[in-house]
């Protein structure tokens, strides 16, 4: 009985440790990326707590909505404003965090109607080595193979980051193209209606102009009788 409980406890413990390990690995790649919809009149802050002093790279881009601008701030744990830009559409910031909670704020408080979509990502400025990403001990001396792997890793990570950037810009372009596509239809339809209305309006206006002359000339003497009979077709 006692043995059973002991093994059960051990199993629970192992499970607990495994869970922790798993949670750790989930964000081991170190990149936090979110695309968030900032509603009008809203100020949204995202926080992250750092415990080491490794350089951090923060990148944001307003994807769409209004004039594609937001007020962006980075606030340090002691409440200082590290970075402040009004009506920014996109930027890259590198900074060294201290211990504590950093806030990344996007404010759309100046906008009354338009919601904005902002994409941002926070990642270490320098690429981690493969062994660190796998959660292993960093080898004190790398052999040629490992060094080559790490070099490839850096290059490949750069490619991934470029892809990410490209993706956002492509999304902006695509959104614009889709809007243009819709607008072309509506605008053209509107213009056609305007042309038709103008055409009919011109004729009606012209006709009333001549009808008015007829009315004003009606009481005057010496006009031929036939003038009174007018068909309005």
């Amino acid at each position: 009985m006692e043995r059973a409980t002991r093994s059960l406890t051990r199993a629970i413990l192992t499970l607990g440790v495994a869970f922790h390990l798993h949670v750790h690995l989930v964000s081991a790649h170190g990149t936090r990326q979110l695309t968030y919809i900032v509603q009008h009149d809203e100020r949204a802050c995202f926080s992250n707590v750092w415990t080491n002093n490794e350089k951090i790279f923060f990148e944001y881009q307003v994807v769409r909505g209004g004039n594609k601008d937001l007020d962006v701030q980075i606030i340090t744990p002691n409440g200082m404003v590290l970075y402040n830009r009004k009506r920014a559409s996109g930027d890259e910031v590198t900074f060294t965090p201290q211990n504590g909670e950093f806030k990344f704020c996007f404010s759309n408080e100046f906008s009354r109607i338009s919601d904005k979509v902002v994409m941002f990502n926070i990642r270490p400025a320098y690429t981690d080595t493969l062994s660190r990403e796998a959660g292993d001990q960093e080898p004190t001396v790398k052999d040629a193979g490992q060094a080559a792997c790490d070099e490839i890793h850096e290059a490949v990570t750069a490619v991934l980051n470029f892809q990410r950037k490209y993706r956002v810009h492509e999304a902006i372009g695509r959104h614009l193209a889709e809007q243009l596509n819709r607008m072309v239809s509506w605008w053209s339809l509107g213009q056609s209606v305007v042309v038709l209305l103008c055409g009919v309006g011109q004729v009606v206006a012209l006709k009333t102009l001549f009808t008015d002359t007829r009315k004003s000339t009606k009481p005057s003497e010496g006009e031929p009788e036939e003038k009174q009979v007018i068909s309005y077709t």
Partner: protein
Amino acid sequence: MALTTFLFAIFSLFLTSSALYFHIGETERKCFIEEIPDETMVVGNYKVEIFDSNINDFVPTVYGLGMHVDIRDPDDKVILSRTYAAEGRFTFTSHTAGEHIICLNSNSTAWLYAGQLRVHLDISVGEHAVDYSQVQAKDKLSELQLRIRQLLDQVEQITKEQNYQRYREERFRQTSESTNQRVLWWSIAQTLILLLTGFWQMQHLKSFFQAKKLV
């Protein structure tokens, strides 16, 4: 001593694993967008904490407070709408490629004190989370082999992204071609409308003036 080190290790593990977090009012709703290819799994890990004014800090919720998750696909169809516990994960697999909107709000409707909630959130797309120590143990890989395996996974990720890029490029091109066609046909149609209107005006006015004996 060993225990303290162990505890510290666990503690630091837990800290480094902390995701981004944000604050949310009880009736507020936060929406995120994930642009993903089709047949892709998205995993969202989250944790909700509530503000305790007694200790002036956020504490894990113990009452029946949960999180309502609403996910819509690019065609605005609801693919997930469920209320989850205060801590957990939601997963879904996309069926159409494009922008999926994920909305979160707390399920409290009549919360006694209008509490501030803190939500830790980490959304990962695809198979980001691979436990390499398990892979190494299972496949009996040497260290170098494991490194190559990691690189392979990254390259695979690039290939996937490239594939999706091709899809999006195709869609973009379709949109542009459609715009091109629309501009062309609309300009032809508008020219015709203009000519017809002019012609009709002339005809109409001619008969009008003739009837009025002005010409």
